[in-house]
């Protein structure tokens, strides 16, 4: 008896467990929802058009979607009834609404005036795939007034005059423009090919209903072979208010431009700056004396190398976390080159742990070249410059270890630094090394200022390479930077005056459009 009871209980338990597990299909196995679902009225509000782009698991991904089920209810919390099931693929479904014809239409129904003077044009200064739609608002749209009966404008687009028209977006009442921006990707859901005729309709929507019409709510469900495995949207509102469509406008085509005229200010700056730099470099090459003031942080580099030599201890050079593509890192390479040359001359040790493998490669080239320049190619050892890891704090842990074990006389930090700046600089300070830092990462400068003996702030890092070499060409470009700064100050003063006199034209010269 006991045995039988036990067996029955076990069977019940297994069945129960099976039931529970069937109920709970893990989220990762469920099909994805269709995207870009838009629902809007048509035929004077008698039908609802539901449009969607297939689910990611429809013909792709998990490839389990066997179709879509549509449900409708007059209220978002009411009972949703299935209205239809449609096959997979992109879809545009038309649902004939249950209009209540028993309600008597008393008097002439309100119908807002359509928008007028619609202009369609390709969007300027872009890569194509966009049209700008402008219009004159409906005569019934009294923007700002509480009695305004116009709610919004919907923009519809089709590739042929007769449609089908798909809703592209909505603008608020009072608005006169909509930027219809599509995608350039062929496989994207809103791909909008260039050099194709487009037709537009602008719909004026109101806040009122025809008698018998009302809002509805829809749920779209991605379904699979297994009736328990589906995913559905939350209730989506269908807006059944009165609307008036404009006439069809078009055709218009969109296309990309070959020059972005909005960027002319940038172009002018680039040309001017290049011209000044090249001019100053030529002047420097012809032997003009170019004065640059002394910079304590840079002179300290030379002293520090001397000190390291006296102490017989190595120099630690940290290039930061930047990639070789970062300009701060490139400036740091140049400084590394100068340091390595001095190090080679004095026969001091050099340690360069690297965070990025390409930076390591370049740093090896740079240091090797410096040793050759100094006439000591034999002293160059490939293991002076080595890769540690591309993990921020593992790199810091390793560099900290070097600081405490090798006890370098001088630590030089030049390049891009992030949160690790303070850990490095403090460890170095506690180990008693002389420290020189330089970075353009503004958030980290304070930590270097506090914990290092000398800090090159921002632009000084870029100037340092020119200083250390004292090569006329590099100094020439430094001069060009100064001229640009002088220009900035003059522009700032003029801008300052003009903005206080409300002359916006000058300020607008510096506003760069996208």
């Amino acid at each position, binding site marked *: 008896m006991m045995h039988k009871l036990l067996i029955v209980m076990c069977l019940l338990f297994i069945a129960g467990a099976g039931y529970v597990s069937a109920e709970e299909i893990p989220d990762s196995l469920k099909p994805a929802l269709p995207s870009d679902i838009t629902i809007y009225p048509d035929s004077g509000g008698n039908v609802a058009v539901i449009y969607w782009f297939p689910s990611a698991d429809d013909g792709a991904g998990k490839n389990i979607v066997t179709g879509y089920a549509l449900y409708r209810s007059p209220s978002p919390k009411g009972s949703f009834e299935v209205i239809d099931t449609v096959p997979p693929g992109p879809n545009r479904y038309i649902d004939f609404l249950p209009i209540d014809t028993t309600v008597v239409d008393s008097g002439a129904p309100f119908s807002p005036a359509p928008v007028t003077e619609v202009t369609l044009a390709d969007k300027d200064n872009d890569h194509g795939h966009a049209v700008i739609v402008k219009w004159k608002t409906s005569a019934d749209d009294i923007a700002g007034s509480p009695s305004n009966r116009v709610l919004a404008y919907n923009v519809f687009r089709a590739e042929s005059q007769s449609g089908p028209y798909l809703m592209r977006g909505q603008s608020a009442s009072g608005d006169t423009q909509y930027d219809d921006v599509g995608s350039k990707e062929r496989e994207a859901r809103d791909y909008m090919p260039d050099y194709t005729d487009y037709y537009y309709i602008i719909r004026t929507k109101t806040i009122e209903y025809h008698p018998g019409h009302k809002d509805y709510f829809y749920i779209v469900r991605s379904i699979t072979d297994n009736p328990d495995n589906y995913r559905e949207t939350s209730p989506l509102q269908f807006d059944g208010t009165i609307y008036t469509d404009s006439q069809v406008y078009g055709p218009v085509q969109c296309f990309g431009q070959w020059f972005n005229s909005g960027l002319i200010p*940038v172009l002018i*700056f*680039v040309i001017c*700056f290049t011209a000044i730099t090249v001019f100053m470099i030529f002047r420097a090459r012809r032997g003009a004396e170019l*004065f*640059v*003031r002394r*910079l304590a942080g840079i002179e300290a580099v030379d002293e520090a190398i001397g000190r390291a030599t006296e102490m017989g201890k190595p120099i630690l050079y940290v290039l930061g976390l930047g990639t*070789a*593509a*970062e*300009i701060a890192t*490139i400036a740091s390479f140049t400084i590394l080159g100068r340091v390595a040359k001095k190090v080679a001359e004095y026969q001091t040790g050099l340690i360069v742990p690297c965070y990025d493998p*390409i930076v390591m*490669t370049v740093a*090896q*080239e740079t240091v090797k070249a410096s040793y050759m320049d100094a006439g000591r190619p034999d002293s160059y050892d490939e293991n002076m410059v080595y*890769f*540690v*890891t*591309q*993990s921020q*704090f*593992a*790199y810091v*842990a*390793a560099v*900290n*270890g070097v600081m*405490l*074990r090798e006890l370098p006389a001088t630590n030089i930090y030049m390049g891009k630094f992030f949160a690790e700046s303070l850990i490095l600089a403090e460890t170095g300070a506690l180990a008693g090394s002389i420290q020189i830092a330089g970075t353009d990462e503004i*958030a980290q*400068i*304070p*930590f270097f*200022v*506090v914990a290092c003996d000398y800090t090159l*702030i*921002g*632009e*000084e890092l870029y*100037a340092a390479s020119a200083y250390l070499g004292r090569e006329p060409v590099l100094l020439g470009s*430094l*001069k060009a*930077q*100064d001229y640009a*700064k002088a220009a*900035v*100050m003059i*522009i*700032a003063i003029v*801008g*300052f005056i*003009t*903005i*206080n006199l409300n002359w916006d034209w000058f*300020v607008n010269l*510096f*506003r*760069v459009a996208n």
Partner: protein
Amino acid sequence: MAVTKKISLLILAIVIVLFAVSWIAKTGTFEDTGMPLGLSVRDGFLVTFAAFLTLSIFSFLYKDNPYYKFAEHLFVGVSAAYWMCVGFWSTFVGNFIPKVSEGLSNFFEVPYKGFDVFYFIPLILGIMLLLRMSSKIGWISRWSLAFIVGTTAGLNLIRYMRSDFISQVSNTFVPLVVDWQGFGAFFSDLSLNASGQLIMTMSNWVIFIGVFCGIIYFFFSKEHSGFFGGASKVGIWVLMVTFGASFGYTVMGRVSLLVGRLTFLFHDWLGLIN
């Protein structure tokens, strides 16, 4: 010497004992939650090991020691391999293979996207980079470097010209007198409120003068003397105040990081706090 060796052996013994105790205790705690024995032993070890590593790193604050060295070297090895694997699977297998070889795409089970001859160029440049390992033809790797550096230099030149230079200059144009409606209105509404007219106007002045003097501080071709000296001194003052403010601003954030770590030790590992 012998004494220090004895002490370090003693410490090692204590660490091993503590590790074992923690392992057993943690296994017990996991088992209490209904976990099978095998899994409890494993997770007990992992949590204890994580706590050991955490304490090893903290021990660095006292001084460099074998435990820190162990954690540091383990971290370097593991993280280097970690990023290599991530790079291999996400970029190489995810982005490159599907565009060059159907056979390899099938091998790695990634969807083949059709042959794209242009993706052979990075392959060649990548191989050139690897030639660095040879001392004879290592110079070929410079071609790949030249490609990377050239491309990004062009990109950065234009990007910074626009974002750091032109936009910043135009943002400096601010009205010197905010919302001026005559002296009467100015004095009657006088307040030290941040959105008050006095403070707003003063702030605009400080911004303008601060930017101006800051730029003068960064002038390289003039000696810092006379007017230039004064202005650049104001500039460096503004810079220092700013550095102090952002230093102070960061302190709280850093302390909360420490709190996070202590929570791991006292809650996840020792279970002392809830």
